[in-house]
């Protein structure tokens, strides 16, 4: 066999995604008499059997409240919960379990930092820097704390490709900037920002950094140590894990300075009526009964992603993305919103004269699930002079055939609305 026979070289790849796809029960259903085509991963990912089973198993066997319990169920639940923390530590390249706080999601993680770090470090005249690409979750919490402290919220502008230039970032990071909080990947346009460089630039000026990694976790490896970032946030549900769980990573030295914002069980050391003292990290920032089953599901999701491996995930998603760009690009009515050079598996588009809601509805009738609307990024939509887009967001188990179906379904929808001549 020589190299010119590609089928042989590709052979080991093909069974991969088919087997992987089989592990996701939700993918194998009919919607409106068509097989479901799920292209809404930026909103939430589907869950593999192993993640669902891990939680079921927990409830069937180990369910108990964690910490402080001497009985076996509680010990088992506690061990599973803390092992999940260790796994998360490893997964993101953190150094120790004090650096991983379990929250209810990215939104909760960012708010925790904005409130707790913000109250301690922001004062009138200071600046908080975000980019024009942010999800409301990385915008509104900063607005709130700026209102409370008198700090100013500054926005690094977005260019017409939907990119934020590193020059603009460098310019806007200055002596008044206290924190630079940015999304690594834009959920609305798919833009991948040069996170390493931006963190380095900010740190050179002594500015604290937070990365919203909600759109990164299921698609690219994360190494907080390599990034050197101070805070990093993500949600389990976008990485094939369950709803109701997220992570706040923080450098230990910084987390240690944070005052807890939420008080209750598990986060205390000693409580008297006059005064309470707090437990050590990470417990200090995890008040109340945590989402134990959720954390165990997150742990299974990490196992699942790692069993596939990043190089395969990245290669396949990039192939799917290129194919989707090609196919959608071939429909003349479609106008891409955002044409970033460095793009994750997210494509936003509009058809002029057609409301995204109509398009989304007519695609749904053909079994295709994508998202329409402002994608929790109203200011970004305003920048492009639109109220919303249709957004296709991919996962490794999507197929080239599904992209073909999308193309066909789009043309059919456009024809129905009189935007394409009947053939």
């Amino acid at each position, binding site marked *: 066999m020589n190299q010119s026979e590609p089928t042989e070289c590709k052979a080991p790849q093909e069974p991969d995604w088919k087997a992987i796809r089989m592990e996701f029960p939700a993918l194998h259903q009919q919607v*409106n008499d068509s097989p479901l085509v799920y292209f809404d991963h930026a909103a939430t990912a589907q869950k593999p059997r192993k993640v669902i089973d891990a939680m079921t198993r927990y409830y069937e066997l180990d369910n108990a409240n964690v910490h402080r319990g001497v009985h076996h169920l509680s010990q088992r639940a506690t061990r599973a919960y803390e092992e999940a923390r260790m796994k998360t530590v490893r997964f993101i390249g953190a150094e120790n379990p004090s650096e991983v706080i379990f929250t209810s999601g990215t939104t909760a993680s960012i708010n925790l930092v904005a409130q707790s770090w913000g109250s301690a470090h922001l004062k009138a005249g200071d600046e908080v820097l975000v980019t024009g690409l942010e999800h409301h979750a990385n915008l509104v919490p900063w607005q709130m704390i700026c209102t409370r402290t008198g700090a100013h919220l500054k926005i690094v502008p977005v260019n017409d490709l939907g990119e934020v230039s590193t020059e603009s970032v460098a310019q806007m990071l200055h002596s008044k900037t206290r924190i630079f909080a940015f999304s690594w990947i834009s959920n609305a346009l798919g833009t991948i920002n040069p996170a390493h460089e931006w963190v380095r630039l900010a740190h050179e000026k002594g500015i604290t950094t937070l990365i919203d990694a909600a759109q990164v976790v299921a698609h690219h490896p994360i190494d907080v140590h390599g990034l050197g970032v101070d805070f990093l946030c993500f949600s389990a549900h976008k990485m094939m894990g369950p709803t109701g769980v997220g992570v706040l990573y923080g450098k230990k030295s910084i987390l240690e300075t944070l005052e807890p914002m939420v008080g209750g069980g598990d986060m205390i050391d000693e409580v008297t009526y006059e005064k309470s003292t707090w437990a050590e990290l990470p417990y200090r920032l995890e008040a109340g009964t945590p989402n134990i089953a959720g954390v165990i599901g997150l742990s299974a999701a990490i196992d699942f992603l790692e069993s596939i491996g990043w190089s395969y995930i990245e290669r396949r998603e990039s192939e799917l993305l290129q194919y989707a760009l090609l196919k959608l690009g071939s429909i003349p009515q479609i106008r891409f919103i955002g044409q970033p050079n460095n793009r994750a598996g997210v494509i936003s588009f509009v058809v002029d004269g*057609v*409301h*995204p*809601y*109509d398009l989304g*509805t*007519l695609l*749904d*009738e053909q079994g295709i699930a994508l998202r*329409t*609307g402002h994608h929790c990024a109203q200011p970004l939509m305003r920048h492009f002079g639109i*109220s*919303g887009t249709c957004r296709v967001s991919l996962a490794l188990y999507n197929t080239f055939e599904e992209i073909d179906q999308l193309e066909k379904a789009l043309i*059919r929808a456009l024809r*129905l*609305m009189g935007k394409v001549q009947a053939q």
Partner: protein
Amino acid sequence: MSNLPSTMKSIQDQLAADFEYLDDWEERYAYLMDLGKDVQGLPLEEKTTDNLIKGCQSRVWLTTRCENNRMWMSADSEAFIAKGIIALLIKVFNGQTPADILNETFDLPDRIGLTAHLSPGRANGLAGMLARIRHDASLALATPNNN
């Protein structure tokens, strides 16, 4: 009860029957959007925040007035499908009495396979439009000179 115009029930029956003639979802949506094209819409000055229905992904503005104990509504939307739904609402509710409107079950979307548009949450505005119409109808009922 009211005899002219037809009861809302019979209008819904008639519309449901019209949709039943259609073969598939494409024809049904084409018909719905066609109905929408006949909707008069609203002048710009009535597209106010007050008239905006909360909870529509496509913006929908709706106004009502009550004359001689009959309700009349006008509405507009950016989206074809939303406009089609507006057309249905107008066909069913226009010219009816506030009391009858408040008593009527609007199950047409269910019957023509548009259930998704009635679901709770905030992706679409049918629930919001209905709520606004009913709200205005009860206001009209409470205002003596309309009765």
